């Protein structure tokens, strides 16, 4: 194939725009572009922040005076539950996702993220899920069991209404969006970078986001599992958490905090990444301790999964475990402190320049350090037992969340807004806004430490006047209104900047990272051509580089076939190894999101059979996504500019979608691991064991199921082998589908005949869950095998274009392994309950 001929800068711009732009009008539903969706995520998240803020004001209005009659406990419980849930799930996580989606490709020197349609699908899931929660609140049936939804309070016995279901289903729905973002961010960082950007040249933000995304992949599954189990209990009476039937409310706490603790670092790390990008700019010095920081964030990532029990010190944990988790919780202060000192060192080495973002970062330093110190205090068991569940904890958590997330995000807003809008402001309101927020915040929450130590529990709607918390609470409430005025000024300032800001040419802060090498505001394709990076990507010359790229003097400075192209590189060395062709604007993600939302609504209203309909629609739509991918002939190496060539991604060895499947399976395996943990936990710790009736599984049918699962995996591999030898894989694919189906049937048989009634006791319920997990995986395996057949029929497979079957193989293998483990677990659980033959 010949090299597409060079064109003028203006023509290149128009050619690229024609391909990448989102259609106008109703076309907004079809947006898949990261710049567009990043902006939407940020705006939506900020809207939810405002909603959460209004709820916070209601809380403070209620608590301003003793024996307040503003709202009753029923409403108050909804208010604080929604405040916490909105802030954590609908503001903090999506806000960082928005920042990441908008910035990441530009920082990495790519034109978009790896899976644009997934970005869009995640966005719609988020919007629909969030709307369900807010809608329920407006109707007065919001969740009211606290943001950590402890059972049995959230079980149907004590919360019979729809309230808890709204939380479980709505939040899980939003979580889909978080997980898709996590897969996407991980794969994009690992594969979609500018050539030459080896792993040791990554901008520091990419490291932060990589660790964050990996933490999400392993942190969210326990909560998703917990939500599924609790919803199964609420909807179908499966007693996972019911202490009268062998369940245990502590299982919920473990699953929740296994997610919940990493969650706070998932929120903090991206903010710390933003700080690590801003500080060097204003210090005019490269980040000190790049490698030490990477080590620190990886350490935080690991440590944060070993700390969850510090939220459960009062549940009656053995002493040795208390000591262990206490020490581990203190330990996490070290890598966090290291980052703070690295930022200080950068400032000390450089020549700091002051501007609005720096002011907000100073606020971050003060507040976050205090939050960190109270965190260490709370890690000390004897003190924790006093302060736990009081307003001391409320103070602490806001110091870390507002200090560690809100302030850096405000700084980031001022720092990157010029990039989004192409305008700078003269900051008339930014400074008074800062002082109002900063003073108001400290007034609200500093005093709350004391309120808590004076014995005020959290989550109470009223308190007696004798308690002597009157003045402190009143001052806290006044402070919170001061803070709100500050936020209002901030919003006003942003609006003014967007409307009336002055335009600028390029790079107003003289930053040194790649995102400032795009034109501002950025065009849909971000870079007219992709850079070759030869030094750390945090310290480039975006000004001159930007001109070169706009003139098309980098990679892919041309258009071909109307494709949206960007480059994939080797994970570590950053050498270009494929041309990634990205999907263009489509409304499919919107419709798929809508169908998924309909499933959620059906489940909410307990229309379980009806839910099968939108479920089928969702699967069909998801399969439709693949219609436009791939090709019917082999293309071979394509020119990518600068005299180099690369294969198109579906012909390449390890394209993004292959890696995506690997990470999806890692998250899936975590969910399965959590399920195994739950089964063992119940059998060993829960009250009410052994069960009255013990299941005696039919070993013959189990053996059959095992053989069929192994066969399915084998057939999947044989299909791939035949394809690679240029023989039609049809027969093997068909057999794989049949084997999966057979495995499903055998497993269902075991459930129906041996387990019989999963509502009897947690013993039966856990077996049901394990077998159900295996059924689901065999079912999806069947669909994937059929999908392979369909690809074969439409001529999209060849020995070179064998990606679909390789992805299928990953799944079939995993389904077999997980299914076998599930079967072994079933046997072990039956034997240990006393059902030995």
């Amino acid at each position: 194939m010949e090299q597409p001929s060079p064109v003028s800068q203006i023509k290149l711009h128009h050619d690229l725009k024609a391909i990448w732009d989102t259609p106008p009008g109703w076309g907004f539903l079809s947006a898949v572009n990261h710049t567009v969706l990043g902006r939407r995520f940020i705006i939506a998240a900020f809207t939810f922040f405002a909603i959460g803020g209004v709820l916070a004001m209601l809380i403070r209005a209620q608590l301003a005076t003793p024996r307040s009659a503003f709202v009753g406990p029923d409403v108050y419980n909804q208010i604080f539950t929604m405040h916490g849930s909105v802030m954590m799930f609908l503001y903090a996580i999506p806000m960082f996702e928005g920042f990441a989606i908008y910035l990441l490709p530009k920082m990495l020197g790519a034109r978009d993220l790896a899976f644009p349609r997934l970005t869009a699908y995640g966005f719609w899931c988020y919007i629909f899920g969030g709307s369900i929660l807010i809608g329920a609140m407006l109707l007065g049936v919001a969740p009211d069991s606290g943001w950590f939804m402890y059972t049995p309070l959230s079980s149907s016995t004590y919360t019979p209404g729809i309230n808890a279901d709204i939380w479980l289903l709505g939040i899980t729905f939003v979580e889909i969006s978080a997980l898709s973002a996590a897969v996407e961010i991980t794969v994009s960082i690992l594969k979609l970078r500018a050539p030459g950007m080896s792993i040791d040249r990554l901008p520091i933000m990419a490291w932060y986001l990589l660790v964050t995304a990996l933490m999400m992949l392993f942190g969210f599954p326990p909560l998703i599992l917990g939500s599924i189990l609790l919803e199964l209990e609420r909807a179908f009476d499966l007693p996972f958490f019911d202490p009268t039937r062998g369940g245990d409310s502590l299982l919920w706490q473990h699953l929740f905090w296994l997610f919940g603790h990493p969650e706070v670092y998932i929120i903090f790390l991206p903010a710390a990444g933003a700080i690590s990008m801003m500080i060097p700019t204003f210090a005019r010095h490269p980040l000190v301790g790049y490698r030490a920081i990477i080590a620190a964030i990886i350490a935080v990532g690991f440590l944060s999964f070993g700390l969850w029990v510090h939220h459960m010190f009062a549940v009656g944990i053995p002493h040795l475990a208390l000591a262990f988790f206490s020490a581990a919780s203190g330990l996490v202060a070290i890598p966090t402190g290291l980052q703070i000192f690295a930022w200080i060192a950068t400032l000390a080495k450089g020549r700091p320049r002051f501007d609005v973002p720096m002011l907000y970062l100073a606020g971050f330093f003060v507040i976050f350090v205090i939050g960190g110190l109270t965190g260490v205090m709370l890690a000390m068991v004897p003190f924790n037992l006093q302060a736990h569940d009081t307003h001391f904890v409320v103070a602490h958590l806001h110091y870390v969340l507002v200090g560690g997330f809100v302030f850096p995000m405000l700084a980031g807003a001022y720092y990157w807004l010029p990039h989004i809008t192409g305008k700078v402001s003269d900051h008339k309101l930014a400074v008074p806004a800062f002082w109002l927020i900063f003073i108001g915040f400290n007034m609200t929450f500093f005093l709350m430490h004391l309120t808590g130590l004076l014995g005020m529990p959290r989550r109470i709607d009223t308190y007696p006047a004798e308690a002597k918390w009157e003045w402190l609470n009143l001052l806290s409430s006044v402070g919170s209104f001061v803070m709100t005025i500050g936020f209002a000024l901030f919003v006003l300032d942003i609006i003014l900047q967007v409307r009336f800001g002055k335009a600028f040419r390029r790079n107003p802060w003289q930053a040194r990272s790649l995102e400032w090498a795009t034109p501002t505001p950025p065009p849909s394709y971000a870079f007219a051509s992709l850079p070759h990076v030869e030094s750390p990507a945090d310290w480039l010359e975006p000004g001159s580089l930007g001109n070169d790229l706009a003139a098309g003097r980098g990679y892919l400075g041309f258009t071909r076939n109307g494709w949206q192209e960007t480059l994939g590189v080797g994970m570590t060395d950053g050498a270009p190894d494929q041309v990634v062709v990205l999907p263009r604007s489509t409304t499919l993600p919107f419709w798929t999101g809508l169908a998924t939302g309909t499933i959620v609504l059906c489940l909410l209203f307990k229309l379980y059979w009806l839910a099968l309909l939108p479920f089928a629609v969702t699967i069909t739509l998801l399969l439709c996504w693949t219609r436009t991918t791939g090709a019917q002939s082999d293309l071979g190496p394509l020119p990518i500019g600068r005299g180099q060539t690369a294969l198109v991604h579906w012909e390449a060895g390890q394209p993004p979608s292959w890696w995506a499947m690997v990470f999806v399976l890692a998250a899936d395996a975590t969910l399965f691991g959590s399920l195994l943990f739950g089964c063992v936990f119940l059998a060993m710790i829960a009250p009410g064991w052994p069960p009255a009736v013990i299941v005696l599984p039919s070993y013959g049918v189990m053996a059959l199921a095992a053989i069929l699962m192994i066969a399915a995996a084998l057939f999947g591999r044989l299909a791939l082998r035949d394809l690679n030898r240029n023989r039609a894989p049809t027969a093997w694919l068909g057999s794989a589908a049949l084997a999966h189906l057979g495995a499903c049937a055998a497993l269902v048989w075991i459930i129906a005949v041996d387990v019989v009634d999963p509502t009897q006791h947690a013993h039966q319920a856990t077996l049901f869950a394990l077998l159900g997990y295996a059924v689901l995986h065999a079912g999806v395996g069947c669909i994937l095998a059929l999908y392979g057949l369909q690809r074969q029929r439409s001529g999209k497979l060849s020995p070179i274009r064998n990606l679909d079957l390789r992805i299928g193989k990953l799944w079939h293998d995993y389904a077999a392994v997980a299914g076998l483990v599930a079967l072994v677990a079933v046997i072990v659980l039956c034997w240990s309950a006393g059902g030995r033959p």
Partner: protein
Amino acid sequence: MPILGTSLLLAGCGGDLSALDPAGPNAHNVATLWWIMLWGSTAIFLFVSLILCLALTQRGQRLLSPRWLLIGGGLAFPSVVLVALVAVSLALGERLLVYANEAPLRIEAVARQWQWEFRYGDDTNIATLDKLHIPAGRPVDFAVTSDDVIHSFWIPRLGGKMDAIPGHTNTIRLMADKPGTYGGVCAEFCGEGHAIMRFSVQAHEPNEFNDVMQQLSASRAERQQ
């Protein structure tokens, strides 16, 4: 001196729920730990702020070499502080268990929406609602559990809290130094009545305590006839 001043101030404004106005060995230990941590944290906070100010104003360049900041400030300093702190708190925590040679009294605290029932000694016939009687100067082992959802048993002036979890029984040992009345609350969110799920604790002289027990058992016997 400032410590004294602040504690007086706080003690002055502490209600009957103030953890900073300890009335038993458990709460005393925690209050001590708190004051140590408060002043330690204040010092650390001022120290970090000072370094930040020096960095921002470009002073003390030699002191602030990156190596010193990262290894000294980022690693060595927090490690030393943390080891010391964990050791102190473990020591204080273990002391909570062994503070008396007298055999502890056993009281069952059963929580339900939204009240506390206390059952005394081996004779569980003696029970009170939302009112707890204990002997002063003698350790009490509370066996805490719940009949419905999770609650948490907390008498701030005597010591830390313990969750009341259905299906589990957790034990916490507390002691009141002197006779007196102390407040108790449910600390774990338990539904609409959470805010009003309070109880009061009456610590008696040992003889007086026995009298109260006898009265309770007598009045119960009467009611049963």
